[in-house]
C-alpha cells in the first residue's frame, strides 16, 4: 500500500442503458447493472459512486469528467431521476401555526405548499446562504443561494428561520 492514495477508481467506461436500467460492460465478464449515487449529496454533488444490485461498490469517480463524454448524459439522466430535490426559486409566504411552519414556494419542479417542523433538525445549513429543508413528509427542498432570491422571499425566510 502506498499511503492512502487512490480513493477514486480510474477512468470508467462501458456504461449502457437497457430497458431503462444502467449497465456497465466489463471486459471479460458479464455486464453488471449499476445504480449511481452522489457521495456527498448534501454538501457537494460531484463525486459519484456506482453500486451493483447488492449495494457493493463497482467504481467511485471524482466526477462526471472521469466518464467518456458520450456516456455522461446517461449518468446525468440517472442522477436527475434519483435526486428529487426541489430548488426553491421564490417564497410567497410562510405562516406559523402552533409550531408548524407552512411554506408556499415556487420551485424548479413547480409550485408547492409544504409544512416544516423543528427547523433546528430539519434545516441543514450547508453554508451561510445555502440550505436544505426537509418537510414533515420527508421531501427535500434546497435554496442554493439565499442572496440570489428576491428581497420578499429573503424577508420571509429571515423572519421564519
Amino acid at each position: 500500500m502506498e499511503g492512502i492514495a487512490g480513493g477514486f477508481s480510474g477512468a470508467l467506461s462501458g456504461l449502457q442503458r437497457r430497458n431503462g436500467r444502467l449497465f456497465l460492460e466489463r471486459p471479460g465478464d458479464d455486464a453488471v447493472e449499476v445504480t449511481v449515487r452522489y457521495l456527498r449529496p448534501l454538501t457537494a454533488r460531484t463525486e459519484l459512486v456506482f453500486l451493483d444490485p447488492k449495494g457493493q461498490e463497482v467504481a467511485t469517480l471524482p466526477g462526471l469528467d472521469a466518464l467518456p463524454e458520450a456516456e455522461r448524459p446517461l449518468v446525468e439522466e440517472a442522477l436527475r431521476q434519483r435526486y428529487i430535490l426541489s430548488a426553491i426559486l421564490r417564497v410567497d409566504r410562510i405562516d406559523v401555526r402552533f409550531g408548524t411552519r407552512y411554506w408556499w414556494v415556487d420551485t424548479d419542479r413547480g409550485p408547492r405548499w409544504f409544512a416544516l417542523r423543528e427547523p433546528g433538525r430539519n434545516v441543514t445549513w450547508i453554508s451561510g446562504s445555502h440550505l436544505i429543508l426537509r418537510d414533515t413528509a420527508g421531501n427535500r427542498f434546497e435554496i442554493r443561494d439565499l442572496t440570489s432570491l428576491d428581497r420578499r422571499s429573503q424577508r420571509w425566510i429571515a423572519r421564519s428561520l
Partner: protein
Amino acid sequence: MHARVAGTFPWRTGVAHRILPGRPWPFPVQPDPPVTLLTPIPPALAGALGRPFDPVVAVRGDLDAHGRFGEVWVASDGDRVVSLGGLADPVDLPLSTLTEVRIDELFGASRLVAVTGDGHHVLAVFSRNLVSEFAALARALEDLREGRPLLLPDRIEAATCPRCGAPLPERGATCPRCLSRTGILRRLLGLLRPYRLRVILLMVWATLGVGAAMVPPLTYKMIADRVLDGAHPEELLLWVGLMLGAFLLSAVCQFLTNWSNAWLGARVVADMRALLHARAQKLQLTYHHRHESGALVGRVMSDTGELQHFLIDGMPYFLVNVLSFVSISVILVTLDWRLAILVFLPVPVLVLGGAGFWRVLRPLFHKHGNRIGRLHTILSESIHGVQAVKSLAQERRRESEFEGANEQLFGVHVGVDRTFQAFFGTMSVMMALGTVLVWYAGGRAILEGTTGIGLGTLLAFVGYMALFYGPLQWFSAVLNWATNALTAAERIFAVIDQPEEGLTRGPAVAPGRVRGHIRFERVRFSYERGREVIRGMDLDVAPGEMVGLVGKSGAGKSTMINLVSRFYDPDSGSVVVDGVDLRDLDLAAWRRQVGVVAQTPFLFNGSILENIRYGDPDASFERVVAAARAARAHDFIAAKEDGYDTVVGDGGSTLSGGERQRVAIARAILHDPPVLILDEATSSVDSETEQQIQEAIAALVEGRTTIAIAHRLATLRNADRLVVVEDGAIVEQGSHEELLALDDGHFARLVRLQTEINRLRAEQVVWKE
C-alpha cells in the same frame, strides 16, 4: 442562476383564482382532492386506453416524467396495470407478464416499478407525501398478480387535512391550521371544572381588587374639590381614610388573587402531567417508535412548565388588567369625555408599538436560544471529547469554534437588550406625552373655567393614567405568551388524543391460562408504510414447544416477538393463540401470560427483591428465593453486602451484564408464564457466567411455549425447532442437525460464518495474553 417560473401560481395568474368559502386568506390553492386507493381517473386520460377500463385500484402520483410536480395515475382492473398521464406515454401491461412490483427508494422521493421479463417499467414517481398510498398499491398489485383476492387496507391515515387540504405535520394528526385557539383555551379551562369554587373565589378577589384600585384617584378628586377649596375641611380625614382603606383592600385582594392562582395553575399543570404520563404508558408502541423519547419527555416536562408559567403569571395578569382597563375607560369617560380622548390618544401607538416590538424581538429570542444551544454543544463536546481533541491536536480549532459561537451569542445578546431598552424608552415617551397633553388641556380648561373641569377631575385623571398606561405596553407580550402556551397545550392534547393500544375489535375474550398454541397466519407488518419487515409469514408453534429464530439482524426476528407480545398489530393476517386472534384477546390478561427476557433486560431502580417481584408484588419471599435459585442468581445475590435488598441503580447499573440477565430470568420464572419470549444477548460473557445463564434458561424454558431469538450454540441445540428468517420470510426450518445437514442451506452458511468469527476471536484472546 435559475430561470424564474413566472405566474405558475393560480392565484397570481387569476385564471383559477379560488379562495375557499369560509376560509380566510391566505388560502392560495384549491387543494387537490385526496388520494385514495380508488382515486377517480379523469375520463380524458382513461379514454387514451381506447377500451373500457374499470379500475379496482387506482392511485394518483404527484410527479411527472420530467420530475415536475404533476399528476400520474397508476391503476389496475385486475387483468392489466396501467400508468396514465405524467406527460409520458401510457404504460399498459398485462399483470401476468409481471415478475415483481416494487418500490425503489430515491433521494427525497420513490418510484413504483413493474418488473417484466424484458425490463423495468417505471409506473410512477411520487413524493414522500404518498408513501403509504403507493405501498398499499404495490401490495395490491402483487396480490392481483399472484391471483390472490384483493385485500385493501381499511383506511390509510390522511396526509393532508380533509378540511383545508394543508399538509399535516404527520399522518392522522390534527391540522394546526384548522385548530382554533379558543377551542384549545376552552379545553384548557375545562380542566378547571373540578375546582369551580376556587375559580369563582379567584374571580371575586380579582374583581374586588380592581374595584378597590379604582377608588384612590376618586379620593384625590374629592379632596381637591371638597376639602382644599375650604368648603368641607372636616372631610379630609374621611377621604384620606378611604384612600388608605382602598389601597389596603387592593393590596390584600391582589395577594389573595395570586395566592389562589398559584394553587390553581400548579393544580391544572400537575393534572395534565399525570394525564400525559398515564397516556404515554398506554400509547401504542408505534407512537414511541415514530417519536423520539426525548420529545415525549420534553412534552411532559417543558410544555407543561410553559403552561404553568402562563397559567400562574399570565392569566391573572390578563384578567386583572382587562378588568382595570375597562373600568378605568368607563370612569374616565364619565368624568370628562374630552380629556378621556386625550388619554386614549397614545393607546393605539402603545398597542401597535408593543406588537411591532414583539415581532422584532421574537426572532431575536429564537436566535438567542439557538446560539445558546450551539454553545452548549461545543462546550459539552469539548469536555466529553477532550481526549479525541487532544489526540488529533485540534485544541486551537475548538477554541476558535467556541470563540466564534460565543461572539455570535454576544451579538444577539446585545441586540436583545438594546431592543428592550429602545422599546421602554419609546413607550415612556409616549406615556409622558399622554400625561403632558392631559395636564395642558386640563390646565387650560380650569383656567378658562367654562368647561366644568376642575382641579379634582384633573388630579383624578392623572391618577388613573398611571394605572392605565402601565399594563398596556405588556399586552402584546402577554398575547405572545398566550400563543406559546396554547402551542404547548396543543402539543400536550395531541399526545392525550392518541389512540390507546390494545383495543380489541369486539368484546374482549379474557383467557384463562392459555395452552400456548401460537400461530402466524399470513402475517404482514411494517413499522413505516412502504417498508414491509414481515412479508406474509406462516408459523405454527405447538404448546410447550421451543422454537429458535435464527437470521441476520434486520431479518424480522424481533418484529416477530413484538407481534406475539402484541406491541404491534399486523397490517394484515393474524397472530392466533389457542385459536383466538390476539386482537380479540384482553391485552393485559394476555401480557400477563407472556414472559419476556430481553436482550438487555431492563431493571427498575430499586432493590433486587423488588425487581424480581415486579410482575407479582405479592409473591412471598420464599417464592422469590426459589425463582432466584432456579435462575442461578441466588448465590451471587446472597453474596452481596445487602443481599436481596441490594439496590440495582439506574437501569441496573450496579450489576454486571450476566447478573442483570439472571435477575431478569428470575423475574420471568416467578411470573410463571405459559408463553415465554427470549431474546438472547449477543454479547459474550465469560464461560462460567455463560454456563450459569444457560442453566437458568433451561430451568425457565421447561414446560413453556418458547420463542427464542437464538445466538448461542447451546440454545440452538436445545430448541425443538429452528426457524431461519430472512428478509421478513421463513426460508428454512428444522432441528439443528437437520439444518446443518443442508450443505447449501442458509443456516449452515450462517454457522460456518459464525465459526470463522469465533476462531478469529479465539486467536485474538491468545494474542492478547
